[in-house]
C-alpha cells in the first residue's frame, strides 16, 4: 500500500453497525490482517472516491480505551502510531450515552474526527430522537446521521471526512473544575514536543502510566497530584476520570436526545420468550438442534453429492496419460477436494448461521442462557456455540471460538472443541462399535468423550487458577438480521479460511502421498507396530488408516477395509480392538482442516502442543481401555 491519498480509521463500540459501515465504504475490496504480536484482527479496504484513493481501516469494536484489553491497545496504538488522517467514530444513536463516553476518550487522543451517528432509524423506532445538529455544536465535531446497513448518509460522511482531514481541527472536552485544575497544573511540567498533545500525556501520567521521554519533574508532580486526589476520593484517578467522562457523556446525551413513545413492543415480546427460565431454554434447545440439523444433515447430504460428483473423475483421470497422475490425484487433487468437502457443506452454512445469530442479537442471549453450564468447565456462555457445533465439524467450531473475547478462554475453547466427536468420528464409532458390538457401547464412547472434555476443562481451570472474572457482555436489542450484512460476512470469512487452509491441506496430502509412493508407509507401519500390537492390542495394518485419518477422519474406517484386505470389518478386528481403535480415533489427532483452523486461531507452538497432547491422550486412553477390556473381552 502506501499509495493512498487518505487514511480513514473506523472506531467505535461493538454492535453499532461499524462493520456494516466498513462494508459500505469498501465493498468487496478487503483484506484482514493481524496486528503484530497480538491476535487482534484489523480489516483494511480501499475506496476510490472523487479521484482519491482512500484506505479505510476497521479498528476492533471496543467500549473504552482504559482497560487495556488487546483490542483496546491495538486501537489506541494504531491511532497514535499510524496517525490516520481522520477517525470516523461510529456512534449508536440508540445508546448515545455509552457511545459518547468512548467518543470523549477518542477526543483526548487529539486526532481529527467525524462522528457517524448510526442506526438513527432503529433509534427512532425505539422512540429515541437525537438532534445531530445540536450534538455537533456541543462536541465541536461534525456529526453525520447514517443508516449504514441501508447505505444512507454514506456519501455525506465521506465528504465530511475528507473535508475534516484537510482542516485538521481538533476538539476539546473539559471535565469538572477539580480535575481540570490538576490537569492544567501538570501540563506546565510537560515539554512542548510531546505527541499527540500535552493534555493527553498529562491524563496518562495521572492514570499512573509510564511514558518514555518525560522529564522526572513531571512524573514527580503527577505522583503528588495522584496522592492528594486519591486521598480525597478514596479511589484511583482512572476511576475518577471514568466517572467524569460519563457525567459529561450523560449531560451531552440528555441535552440532544428526545424520548417519545416507542413504536416497538415486539422486541419485548420476543425477549419474554427467548430470555426466560422455561421458554428460553426450550427455544434454545430447538434452535441448537435446528442449527445442528442444518449443518449436520444438510452438510452430510451436500458432502455426499460433492463426493460422488468429484469422485467420478477419479477413474477417468487415473486412466488418462497425464504424467504423475497418481501423485497428482492422491496428493494434490484429493487434498484440494478435501477442502471443498469441508468448506461447502459444513463451513459455509456455519458461517451463514453464525452471521444470523450475531446480527439478530440471539448469540448474546444464547451465551446468557448457557453461561452457568459452561462455568462447569471454566468457560463462559459464549463457548457453548463453538463446542456444540463441534459435533458437526471441528473446523467451524475452532473458527467460531473467535467470538470469545478473553484470550485464555478462546484458546481453551479451541482446544476442547477439537475433542468434541465430529460427524466423521461419529461415523467411525457408529460404523465399528455401533454396528458390530451395540449402540449402547457406542454411546458409552460418546460419554467418555464428554467426560474427558469436562476433565480437561476442570484441569485447565485449576492450572489457570486466576479466578476468571465471569460474564460481562452487552445484550444488543433483538432484531431482524440483515441478509446483506450476513452474506458479506460469510463471504469474507469463507475466503479468509480457504486462502489459509488450501496450501496447508494440499501440502499435507502431498506429503502423505510422497510417503506412500516412496514405500515409506511400510517402514512407518513397522516402526509403530510394537506400540500398536503391544500396548494397544491392535493389528499392525491399522497403523496406516490411522495415519490417513489425519487427512480426513472418515478415511480411518474406509481404509481399514483396504489395508485389512476384507470389507467385512468383523473378520478383521475383535470387538475389543474395535473399541480401542475407536477410542484412538476419537482423541488422537485433529484432521488437517482442523489443524489449519487451529493455526489460524492460535500460535504455531500452541497448535503443536494440542496435537502432541492429543496423540499422547489417545495412546494412553487406548492402552488403558485395552488393558481393562482384555480382562473380560476376547
Amino acid at each position, binding site marked *: 500500500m502506501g499509495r493512498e491519498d487518505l487514511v480513514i480509521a473506523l472506531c467505535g463500540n461493538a454492535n453499532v453497525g461499524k462493520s456494516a459501515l466498513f462494508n459500505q465504504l469498501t465493498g468487496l475490496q478487503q483484506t484482514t490482517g493481524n496486528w503484530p504480536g497480538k491476535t487482534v484482527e484489523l480489516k483494511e479496504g480501499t475506496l476510490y472516491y472523487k479521484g482519491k484513493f482512500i484506505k479505510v481501516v476497521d479498528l476492533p469494536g471496543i467500549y473504552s480505551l482504559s482497560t487495556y484489553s488487546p483490542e483496546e491497545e491495538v486501537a489506541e496504538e494504531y491511532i497514535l502510531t499510524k496517525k490516520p488522517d481522520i477517525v470516523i467514530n461510529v456512534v449508536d444513536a440508540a445508546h448515545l450515552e*455509552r457511545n459518547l463516553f468512548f467518543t470523549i476518550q477518542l477526543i483526548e487522543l487529539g486526532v481529527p474526527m467525524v462522528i457517524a451517528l448510526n442506526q438513527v432509524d432503529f433509534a427512532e423506532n425505539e422512540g429515541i430522537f437525537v438532534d445531530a445538529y445540536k450534538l455537533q455544536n456541543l462536541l465541536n465535531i461534525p456529526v453525520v446521521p447514517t443508516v449504514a446497513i441501508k447505505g444512507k448518509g454514506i456519501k455525506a460522511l465521506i465528504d465530511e471526512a475528507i473535508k475534516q482531514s484537510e482542516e485538521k481541527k481538533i476538539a476539546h472536552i473539559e471535565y469538572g473544575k477539580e480535575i481540570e485544575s490538576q490537569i492544567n497544573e501538570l501540563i506546565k511540567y510537560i515539554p512542548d514536543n510531546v505527541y499527540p498533545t500535552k493534555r493527553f500525556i498529562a491524563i496518562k501520567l495521572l492514570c499512573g502510566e509510564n511514558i518514555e521521554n518525560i522529564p522526572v519533574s513531571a512524573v514527580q508532580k503527577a505522583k503528588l497530584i495522584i496522592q492528594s486526589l486519591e486521598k480525597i476520593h478514596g479511589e484511583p484517578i482512572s476511576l475518577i476520570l471514568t466517572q467524569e467522562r460519563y457525567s459529561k457523556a450523560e449531560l451531552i446525551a440528555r441535552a440532544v436526545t428526545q424520548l417519545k413513545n416507542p413504536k416497538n413492543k415486539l422486541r419485548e415480546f420476543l425477549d419474554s420468550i427467548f430470555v426466560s427460565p422455561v421458554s428460553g431454554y426450550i427455544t434454545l434447545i430447538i434452535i441448537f438442534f435446528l442449527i445442528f440439523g442444518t449443518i449436520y444433515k444438510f452438510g452430510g447430504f451436500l458432502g455426499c453429492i460433492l463426493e460422488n460428483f468429484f469422485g467420478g473423475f477419479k477413474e477417468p483421470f487415473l486412466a488418462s496419460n497425464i504424467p504423475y497422475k497418481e501423485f497428482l490425484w492422491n496428493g494434490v487433487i484429493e487434498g484440494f477436494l478435501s477442502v471443498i468437502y469441508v468448506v461447502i457443506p459444513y463451513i459455509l452454512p456455519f458461517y451463514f448461521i453464525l452471521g444470523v445469530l450475531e446480527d439478530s442479537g440471539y448469540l448474546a442471549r444464547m451465551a446468557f442462557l448457557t453461561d452457568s453450564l459452561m462455568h462447569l468447565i471454566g468457560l463462559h456462555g459464549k463457548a457453548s456455540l463453538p463446542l456444540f457445533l463441534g459435533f458437526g465439524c471441528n473446523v467451524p467450531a475452532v473458527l467460531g471460538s473467535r467470538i470469545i473475547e478473553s484470550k485464555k478462554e478462546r484458546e481453551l475453547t479451541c482446544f476442547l472443541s477439537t475433542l468434541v466427536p465430529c460427524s466423521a468420528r461419529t461415523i467411525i464409532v457408529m460404523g465399528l462399535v455401533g454396528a458390530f458390538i451395540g449402540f449402547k457401547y457406542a454411546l458409552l464412547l460418546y460419554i467418555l468423550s464428554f467426560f474427558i472434555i469436562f476433565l480437561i476443562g476442570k484441569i485447565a481451570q485449576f492450572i489457570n487458577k486466576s479466578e476468571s472474572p465471569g460474564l460481562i457482555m452487552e445484550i*444488543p436489542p433483538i432484531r431482524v438480521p440483515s441478509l446483506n450484512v450476513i452474506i458479506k460476512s460469510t463471504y469474507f470469512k469463507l475466503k479468509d479460511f480457504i486462502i489459509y487452509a488450501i496450501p496447508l491441506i494440499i501440502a499435507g496430502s502431498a506429503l502423505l502421498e510422497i510417503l506412500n509412493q516412496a514405500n515409506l508407509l511400510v517402514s512407518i507401519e513397522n516402526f509403530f507396530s510394537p506400540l500398536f500390537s503391544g500396548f494397544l492390542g491392535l493389528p499392525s495394518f491399522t497403523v496406516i488408516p490411522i495415519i490417513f485419518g489425519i487427512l480426513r477422519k472418515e478415511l480411518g474406517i474406509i481404509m481399514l477395509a483396504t489395508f485389512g484386505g476384507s470389507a467385512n470389518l468383523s473378520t478383521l478386528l475383535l470387538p475389543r480392538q474395535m473399541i480401542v481403535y475407536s477410542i484412538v480415533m476419537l482423541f488422537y489427532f485433529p484432521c488437517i482442516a482442523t489443524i489449519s483452523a487451529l493455526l489460524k486461531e492460535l500460535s504455531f507452538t500452541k497448535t503443536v502442543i494440542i496435537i502432541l497432547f492429543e496423540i499422547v491422550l489417545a495412546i494412553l486412553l487406548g492402552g488403558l481401555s485395552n488393558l481393562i477390556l482384555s480382562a473380560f473381552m476376547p
Partner: protein
Amino acid sequence: MSLSDLKENEKAKIVKIHGGIGLTQRLMDLGLTYGTVVHIVRNFGRGPIIVSVRNTDIALGRGIARRIWVEKI
C-alpha cells in the same frame, strides 16, 4: 444489598463496586459508575443476570453482580 439480590424490574442506585481495579474499571467503562440508576431486566435466581444501564442491557455473571453494592429505590 448487592445487585444480584434485586428482583426483576426493581431499580437501584450503584453505591460501590467491591472488586480489583481491573474489574471496577471494566464495569465503569460500560456505564456502571457510582450513583448510576440501573434496573434489573432478568434475574432467574441463579446464573447470570441482565441489568439495564444507560439504556443498554448488560449481562453480568452472578459472581460479578454480587460485588456490586446498590441501594434500592
